[in-house]
């Protein structure tokens, strides 16, 4: 089991945003983290990547918590943030080198992979540019390339589809499939429900800091029989029911 989140209570200040959140991501599985704005998706992600410390509860990656082995834990995560974040002073090539150094990757192998990815995303002629000046979609691609050269067993991807062109969305989904086949796990938060429906193996529906439902699409349909067929229907009925309460 790659990622195990157990009864996590947490947030930015004293007031908890997450209330006993529990879910897991198995090896070779793509789990979609679905929720409205402010439902706690990013907070959950920030806890997993170690930017925030849970007040209560525990997060384990392959049996390790952050406190047990800081670097062992961090090494297992590749993170793609929602808004691309880049070093102003580093060129595209240097971003890749930084990642290779930080994750102690074998340079030749990593560069092979990087060149392959760069050509997929048509960035191979921009190695000497500052990506900080790229458009949002291109910055996002840089983030993707950096994440996918790490060979981490767990990918945390925060809303990847906005800003990417349709071609890049497909390429990203293919990459995710490749990683899954190799046994890596992926946790992806998104609002693009029809894409999520097609590609995710399982869903965690987050609402108001709690996990409302969790499971595969058939399982969700079973849990909410009147809601409808698609993930969109199920999700809408769930949030609507919640607003009426």
């Amino acid at each position: 089991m790659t990622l195990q989140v157990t009864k996590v209570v947490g947030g930015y200040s004293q007031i908890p945003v997450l209330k006993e959140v529990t879910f897991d991501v198995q090896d070779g599985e793509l789990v979609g983290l679905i929720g409205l704005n402010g439902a706690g998706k990013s907070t959950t992600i920030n806890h997993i990547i170690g930017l925030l410390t849970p007040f209560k509860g525990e997060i384990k990656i392959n049996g390790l918590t952050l406190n047990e082995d800081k670097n062992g834990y961090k090494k297992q995560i590749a993170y793609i943030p929602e808004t691309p974040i880049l070093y102003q002073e580093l060129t595209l090539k240097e971003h890749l080198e930084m990642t290779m150094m930080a994750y102690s990757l074998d340079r030749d192998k990593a560069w092979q992979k990087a060149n392959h990815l760069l050509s997929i995303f048509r960035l191979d002629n921009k190695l000497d540019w500052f990506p900080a000046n790229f458009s949002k979609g291109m910055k996002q691609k840089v983030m993707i390339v950096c994440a996918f050269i790490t060979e981490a067993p767990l990918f945390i991807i925060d809303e990847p589809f906005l800003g990417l062109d349709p071609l890049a969305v497909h390429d990203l989904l293919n990459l995710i499939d490749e990683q899954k086949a190799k046994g890596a796990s992926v946790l992806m938060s998104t609002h693009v429900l029809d894409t999520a429906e097609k590609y995710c193996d399982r869903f965690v529906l987050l609402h108001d800091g709690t996990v409302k439902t969790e499971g595969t699409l058939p399982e969700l349909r079973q849990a909410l029989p009147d809601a409808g067929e698609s993930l969109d229907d199920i999700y809408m009925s769930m949030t609507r029911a919640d607003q009426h309460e």
Partner: protein
Amino acid sequence: MNNLYRQRLSSHLKEMFKYLRLVFNDHFVFALLIFIGGLGYAYSNGLKELQPNLWWAKPVIVIVLLLVLQLGRFATLFQDADVVFLLPKEAEVRQYLSGARTYSESLAVVYELFGMFVLLPFIQVTDAMPVFELALIAVAQLLLKDSLFSLAIVRRFQVKSAWLKESVWFKWVVPLIILVASVYGMPMVGTLLALVLAVCLRVADKRYNAVPFDWWQAITLENNRMMGVYRFFNLFTNVPMLKGVAKRRRYLDWLLNIVKITPKNTYLYLYSRGIVRSGEFSGLYSRLTILGMVLLYFVRGTWLPVALAALFLYLIGFQLIPFYWQFDDIVFTHLYPVEEKQRVNSFRRLMFSLIGITAVLFLVMVCVANQDLTVGLVAFAVELIEVVLMVQYYLPLRLRKKK
């Protein structure tokens, strides 16, 4: 819109006073008083040695007036978001600009008058002009400044004509002609020309009412201005707003390539590129180093140069310490599986190289200025001890304290 400018001005002034308080702290005021006193004394001494009718006196007056004319910029206080939020208010942007003009121009008038006040004794000594002529020159100068503000407004509209936008003509060439006329015995003509220019530009400015406002241009110009202000304050204190644009500086790549690409050097790789390519810290470092070298060139003695070199070395090292946290707002800095100890070591190596280079340059300067073996040896010993102390003990201590 008028209220908006007033609001922004008051918060802008509040911010400026906050920084001014930091700049004019006790030590600095003391140093500044001595500095100004010394400067004034040197100026008055210099004046005593001048005779009337020096050939270079008039050109100097013209050049100084021309330079003073460039002081005082147009503070529109526009912000990035204005292009979205004020777009529907475009019709009222005139009102806003006139508020901005009132403030900027009154400040500029103070600069101009101060500049002329300082220049006055020089004019009196070298060129016994009648008071009336002096007054005319002052009027011409103020009219020229007024024209520059009209032009500044025109430049912020989507004006097509290139010659109006071209800053060299109206900022330098035209004022130069008018000032030459004024100083070289035709103050009437100069003032009249300045008046015509000021009136024409004000009329032109009004005529551009129908032209759409150039939000991008206006915002860029204002951002540049604020950048300059922050950069000035950054000489004395830390300015969080200062986020310069990175420059590629390819010619320094050989220096960066010294850093070997191994996991141990992750942060050294980042820090070295950061310092070379961002304007902020490298500017600070090179300015202080050059300033120190210039001072050391003029200072003679046994202990004074050594003490001065030591002081500057400490100052530079001290100012560089916050660079350690430069990349903390980038999330990956926290995600990399790299130990904090390695980061500290990387930073120490960077610091050692930087102040090491400065120390060597200072030592060369001390030797050149004094031409004395003992002084050189003492300076070498003191600097060596200081660099080691700073990198080995002081820096880790400071980094730990902040944690």
